């Protein structure tokens, strides 16, 4: 499943040199459109971002400032760390839950033929519809005054602020038990948890479809054999299905993690003021970069934004490599 270098084409190596050159020329020609675009809008800006990160660039270009942008970003308790924390909660909140729920639903659907196509399509819908429209609907559902979610829980005596609530969920839970937690342990804000829930709703269908395909590919003779050996339920899952599904699960983990680090639209629309939400508890790194460039904090500027972006790039790269090493080694390929 993971890309390896393409195999040698049907061999022309023994062909006359002129034909080899013609073929190479044709190949470069064929590569030209995609290479131009990917180069100009993929690699070139990456290098540019690196160069810009060492400059001070507000509304007009400034001068070279060395590592100043990086030191500002990495200063203790800086806005960057805060946004990274938000991103971290977001990733931890969405990825495992989506995978677990996706697997559960895929298992449920796997054995039932009737209604499979219907449910699969239904779960897939949130993934493809207009993200702004979906976020607008969720904003309304989670409205503290007019939302149906609010009316649903108000009989319990709650007055949730949902997307406007900055208090951390752990702190709130602890409050219910008359315990006060230190500030750092407050956890993701209720607003962020709401956004996490919406993201899970959005990504679930993709996971279900992929895992369904994975489950369908699990050879039945293996599961039958295991069943004959007495394996049921949990054991069957752990010892047979999960290892066979591990490439799929690994793929989904990496994809979802990378995507979670890049989320913009949902965070932007669901952040109640489009600025990072209550007390900036829904401002992830992507939104922060956008702000550096564009929002009223033009005091930060594009150069600083590029520095933050480079830091994010390194983190994602490192995390992906880590995932490949730690999880990748446990993937069972057939």
């Amino acid at each position, binding site marked *: 499943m993971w890309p390896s270098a393409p195999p040698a084409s049907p061999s022309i190596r023994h062909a006359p040199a002129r034909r080899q050159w013609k073929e190479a020329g044709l190949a470069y020609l064929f590569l030209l459109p995609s290479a131009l675009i990917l180069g100009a809008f993929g690699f070139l800006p990456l290098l540019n971002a690196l160069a810009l990160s060492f400059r001070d660039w507000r509304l007009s270009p400034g001068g070279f400032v060395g590592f100043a942008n990086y030191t500002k970003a990495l200063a203790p308790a800086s806005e960057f760390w805060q946004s990274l924390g938000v991103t971290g909660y977001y990733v931890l909140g969405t990825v495992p839950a989506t995978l677990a729920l996706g697997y559960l639903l895929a298992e449920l659907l796997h054995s039932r033929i009737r209604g499979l196509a219907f449910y699969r399509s239904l779960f897939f819908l949130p993934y493809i519809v207009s993200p702004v429209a979906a976020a607008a609907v969720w904003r309304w559902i989670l409205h503290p005054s*007019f939302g149906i979610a609010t009316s649903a829980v108000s009989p319990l005596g709650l007055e949730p602020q949902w997307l406007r609530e*900055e208090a951390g969920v752990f702190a709130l839970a602890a409050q219910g038990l008359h315990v006060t937690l230190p500030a750092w342990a407050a956890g993701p804000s209720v607003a962020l948890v709401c956004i996490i829930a919406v993201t899970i709703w959005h990504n679930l269908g993709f996971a279900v479809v992929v895992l369904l395909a994975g489950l369908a590919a699990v050879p039945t003779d293996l599961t039958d054999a295991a069943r004959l050996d007495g394996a049921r339920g949990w054991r069957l899952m752990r010892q047979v299905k999960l290892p066979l599904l591990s490439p799929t699960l690994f793929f989904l983990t990496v994809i979802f993690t990378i995507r979670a680090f890049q989320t913009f639209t949902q965070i932007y629309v669901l952040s109640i003021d489009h600025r990072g939400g209550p007390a900036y508890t829904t401002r992830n790194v992507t939104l922060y970069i956008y702000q550096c460039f564009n*929002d009223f904090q*033009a005091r930060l500027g594009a150069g600083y934004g590029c520095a933050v972006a480079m830091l994010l790039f390194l983190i994602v790269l490192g995390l992906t490599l880590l995932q490949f090493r730690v999880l990748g080694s446990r993937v069972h390929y057939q």
Partner: protein
Amino acid sequence: MTRNIRRPLLGLALLIAAGGLAGCLGATPASSPTSSGSTAGASSGGKTRLTFWHTRRRNQEKLLQEICADYNQASPNVEVVPEFQGSYDDLNKKVRLSVQSKSLPALTVAYEDQVAEYATNNALRPLDDLVSDPEIGLKAEELADLPEQYLRTNRYAQFKDQLLSFPFTKSNLVLYYNRSLLQKAGFSAPPQTWPEFEKQAAAVSRQIGKPAFAFDMDPSTLDGMIFSQGGEVISADGAHTTFDQSATVRMLDLLSRMKKAKTLAQAEPDDLPALFAGQSCAFVLGSSASRANLEELVGTKFDWDIAVIPHAEGVEPVTVMYGPNVCIFKASPEQEREAWKFIKHFISPEVTARWAQGTGYLPIRKSAVTRPEMAAFYEKNPRAKHVYDILPTTKGEPNVVGWREVRSHLQAAAQSVIGAGTAPQAAAVQLKKKADQALAQSR
């Protein structure tokens, strides 16, 4: 896909793709002669084209378009093109991006703090010489016809007191109150002072079972509340804020008390009309620009009116101005002059009266009120007249660079007092610290 859907679908796709690739190659299917969108003032065929960025939608946008169309007809060598740019926040972001991409419009609406920001980037065309121009400027009596606080707020002390923007459309911060609910609770008049306000809010809250005061923590509203407590928000020299003084503390205290007493509920600005019209609250502090919308929403369901916002005892009634100004970006002298001429046209008594009637904003000219159509309008809309009567009490907010950030700190302070229960005194001190830092950093 079945075969008989596939072919026409493919044909349609190819058609659109052809259009798109044509777009790729440069010819956008636009009615404008310029190919790359809205560059401000291309003079094509002798006509000066002025793009005018605004935030109006629906019938207000239509009215604006009509006014521009009428002006274009009367001035054959100019074409004013209004373009919608989202909310004031969105528009502000767009301007910033356009400074970078060198595609600024000719004119845009902007609040004072945004104007100050544009000025620091040297993008604005100061207006003094245009206003005093013998040919196209305003005569002395015309200038006197403008409420002087409108003009004053458009002079920027940090930029040598130049007039960098001009009043475009104005409104006031007012108190909307549900007279029916007040009467049921035994009150015949709206509260004049803050203590009265607290009392009335408590009584009505008891009656309707919900907090009577829906509050959106808009920074301008907060400024107005501080003014009404007899205080200021900034020092005379504009160097630092005065949020640690008693007026701010009393304001935060009031918010804190009312929240604890459950007579205040937090809401977003968008929620206020629906909450008020649905009688889920009885008091709203908001811009008078919402009046027209409320008239529509409430209809005849209950009796309501507009009053000046409460004030501290011993303090004269005072409130804050809402409504943006308009500013001109640097361009060719010809374009700048034409842009100013349009502004002058827009604030002429006739046009400002037309705008005021159609939108519910205040007329910019004092003489507009005496025009027969305005008199008739006020006859039919007494609440609009109440809004106009409040005008003399309005005061402008600071227009120094960095005030945008101060506003967000102010809002955060109110939020922490209401939401997290922070002590008002502590919040005020914190606020002053952060605000002063913001001002210092922006200089």
